[in-house]
């Protein structure tokens, strides 16, 4: 008898597909840190299979711990010869644990816990909090709090949160970008732009740069003003039903707009949206819609290559390296196009050692597993500094916050930037009419 609930259980076919060959072991950051089999993808799948086969209880504390300790970086997916879709297995296992845990909580605790996720289901709420945070930073309150020394007394991740967050922009990208943007010349493609929830509030600059770069390359942009979250955070935390609600909203949002592509500059969101077909495969109405939808979802680097973007006339006089965001390299298999872009931006591109190794950001992992996250971050910063590059390209909001924080902790002058921001700058530096 399976120890899983029938709904959203890890798929048995996928569990069986694991041949236990172990090719994932050297790529797994947590296995590298602990050396314990259970902290490896092969071990985690074995534990899932044991629960599935009724040999281990879903309530086993070590099972819950392992499912939570996994970064979800999916380096194992890149290494797997049998093509096991580990990401889906992990989300399903987390969903099972979440379900089990919730069933034992009193109603008010359930409410309290889903409150954080409500933020991402209700964009105005998130924006409100974003504004409050921005004011907190700008009105000098942050400095005041810092001076009290209160932060130093909080447990490590909470005290550091403020440092990790960086400075929020005054205006969100959704406030600055109109719903339709037309390029000057011929329209090469109509592109729906996903602003993202966190990206919109914290990375307005990246979103606006994406819009300008696409406009400049002949894309007509559709930017729906009331966009929500893509569901990645829900799925990652094992709240698959919540993720499905958001996925349906996202599909509805772009379905009638007649876009050729739906583009993202956040690796995590892109990975999640490309997975909608799987997420909604049992949905009688949205299953088919999702199939068609995912074909249109592109990461910004992929799309730039697809539309044969114009290379900047002058390369920047700076040395550049590139960090592979897990959900871009392992999740979406996008590795070459961002490197191509980097090479178009700089004469001095330097390949980063272990470029596709997780930086430890991993969604909220740097808050929930502060120490492990920092251990991984230190390794990443060492590798970045070893290249001697002045700028590191990073194409995911979580990694950007994490790596910027890591560089700041070391007092390094190296900058972490989204490659599309660098491209935007390069176009602007050319002078002339832009965008």
């Amino acid at each position, binding site marked *: 008898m399976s120890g899983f609930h029938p709904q959203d259980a890890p798929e048995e076919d996928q569990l069986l597909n694991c041949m236990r*060959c172990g090719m994932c072991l050297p790529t797994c950051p947590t296995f590298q840190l602990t050396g314990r089999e259970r902290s490896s993808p092969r071990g985690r799948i074995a534990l899932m299979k044991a629960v599935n086969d009724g040999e281990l209880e879903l309530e086993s504390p*070590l099972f819950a711990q392992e499912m939570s300790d996994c970064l979800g970086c999916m380096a194992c997916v890149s290494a797997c*010869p049998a*093509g096991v879709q580990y990401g889906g297995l992990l989300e399903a296992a987390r969903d099972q644990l979440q379900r089990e845990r919730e069933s034992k909580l009193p109603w008010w605790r359930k409410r309290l816990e889903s409150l954080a996720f409500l933020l991402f289901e209700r964009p105005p709420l998130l924006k409100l909090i974003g504004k409050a945070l921005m004011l907190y930073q700008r009105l000098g309150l942050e400095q005041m709090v810092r001076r009290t020394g209160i932060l130093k007394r909080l447990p490590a991740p909470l005290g550091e949160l403020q440092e990790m967050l960086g400075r929020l922009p005054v205006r969100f990208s959704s406030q600055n970008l109109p719903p339709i943007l037309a390029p000057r010349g011929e329209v090469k493609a109509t592109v729906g732009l996903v602003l993202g929830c966190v990206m919109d509030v914290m990375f307005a600059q990246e979103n606006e740069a994406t819009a300008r770069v696409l406009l400049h390359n002949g894309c007509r942009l559709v930017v729906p003003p009331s966009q929500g979250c893509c569901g990645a955070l829900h799925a990652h935390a094992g709240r698959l039903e919540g993720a499905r609600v958001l996925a349906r909203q996202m599909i509805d949002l772009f379905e009638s707009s007649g876009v050729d592509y739906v583009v993202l500059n956040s690796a995590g969101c892109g990975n999640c949206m490309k997975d909608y077909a799987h997420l909604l495969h049992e949905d009688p109405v949205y299953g088919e819609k999702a199939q068609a939808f995912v074909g249109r979802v592109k990461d910004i680097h992929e799309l730039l290559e697809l539309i044969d973007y114009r290379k900047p006339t002058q390369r920047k006089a700076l040395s550049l390296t590139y960090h592979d965001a897990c959900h871009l390299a392992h999740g979406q298999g996008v590795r070459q196009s961002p490197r191509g872009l980097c090479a178009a931006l700089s004469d001095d591109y330097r390949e980063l050692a272990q470029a596709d190794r997780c930086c430890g950001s991993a969604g909220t992992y740097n808050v929930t597993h502060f120490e492990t996250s920092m251990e991984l971050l230190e390794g990443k910063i060492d590798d970045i500094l070893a290249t001697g590059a002045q700028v590191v390209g990073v194409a995911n909001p979580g990694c950007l916050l994490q790596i910027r924080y890591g560089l700041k902790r070391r007092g390094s002058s190296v900058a972490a930037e989204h490659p599309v921001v660098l491209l935007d700058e390069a176009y602007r530096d050319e002078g002339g009419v832009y965008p």
Partner: protein
Amino acid sequence: MIEPKEPLMPVASVILDRMRSIVGPSNVLSDPAERLSYSYDATAMMKSTPGAVVIPQSAEQIAQVVTLANESGVPLVTRGSGTGLSGGSVPLQSSIVLSTLRLNRILEIDEENLTATVEPGVITANLHQAVEARGLFYPPDPGSMKVCTLGGNVAENAGGLRGLKYGVTRDYVMGLEVVLPNGQVMWTGGKCPKDVAGYDLRQILVGSEGTLGIFTKILVKLVPKPQSKKTLLAIFPTMESAAATVAAIIAEKIIPATLEFLDQTTVECVEGFAGIGLPTDAGAVLLMESDGHPAQAAEQAETMARLAREQGAREVQVARDESEAVKLASARRMAFPALARMRPTTVLEDVSVPRSRLVRMVTRVGQIAKKHNLMIGTFGHAGDGNLHPTILMDERDPDEVRRMHLAFEEIVETALELGGTLTGEHGVGLLKRDFLEKYFPTTAIDMMRKFRASMDPNGILNPGKMFQPAPRREGELPRSAEHSLSILEGLRS
């Protein structure tokens, strides 16, 4: 083949406490979830949960753990990365798993004597990298080299793609420090290429599959790194023409560094998966590599290309640079992944036959597949006659499992009939222990059993592996492999 499923039997807490005092409390794992994650290696359909897991931090600790195990009669199973393909590190009888992963230092690279000394938990590819940085070469390259450990390689006498020209692990082991089953530490071998003093205990330890001792130091031979390499890929209409090419290459007195083949089923799967432009109606594909002095490697490559064309190759591609070489080699590298994706369960075989019988063996595997209505892709080392018939099935289908067992047995028997051996590089372990007596005369089996018993009188190390359970046991005696399976099944229910 058997699938041991034994009850979860925790080790007595007194013994665990003593283990903890040796290796430290955090290095003894006894939680059921921890133990479950050490119940397998890379062998299909094999699982047996250990009584506990012990992770020593030094050779001294290994010796103490073995001494304790021997005194208290608790069996031990040594485990590196758990990538074995014969069930060698699957712990039977609720044994304690002893992990060597923490002993992972490269202790010395001696450029004057061309040797390296490593601890057993060093990953094979890490040794490759370290010695190649100094222009040296450690040739054994098992498919799992990025994951597997040198300790496991020595225990299983691992092979690889370079076996024909460079030999296997055995040919490179010059010395071993080993913890014997009674806990004593013994050194055997040394840095002298010529050494004929006494019995060569080192060689009986290589390939002993964790039954005679636990290696704590390994001294290996190194060779100079070949200066250059040439890679070619030839596509043939039939397996026969590919085999004729192999024969022609050998007749020309060329020993290629690599000579690998894919059969028709495998070619089809590789193309379906990777889309690298292989014609799916090709009867076979050969990947060939020559290495050495640039002029010699180039000349040999040219000759091999000519011979392939003469034998009727439809197409011969010669790599012009490293990136093209990687592309051509990907056809072979994709073989196993492409096959593995076809069905949920992948049973990997590794019989070996004399090179001249390779075609007959591949043909017979095809017939066996048809007879039992199974999908079997075959690829492997054409140069040394070691092939990997890969049975693709679903372990949830009892009838398919039954047919797989029959096909498996017939493949092994066919190899023996053709003058081959039951395992070329994966080892006997659990997967093929029931066939060992078909390969060796009773005298040899008896001698091996006696040798093992004299080294390990209490049966402490890796019990149940390599040989069928001792016939001295009470109850029914297994008469054949199938019969032993039915006995085991009876025990299970």
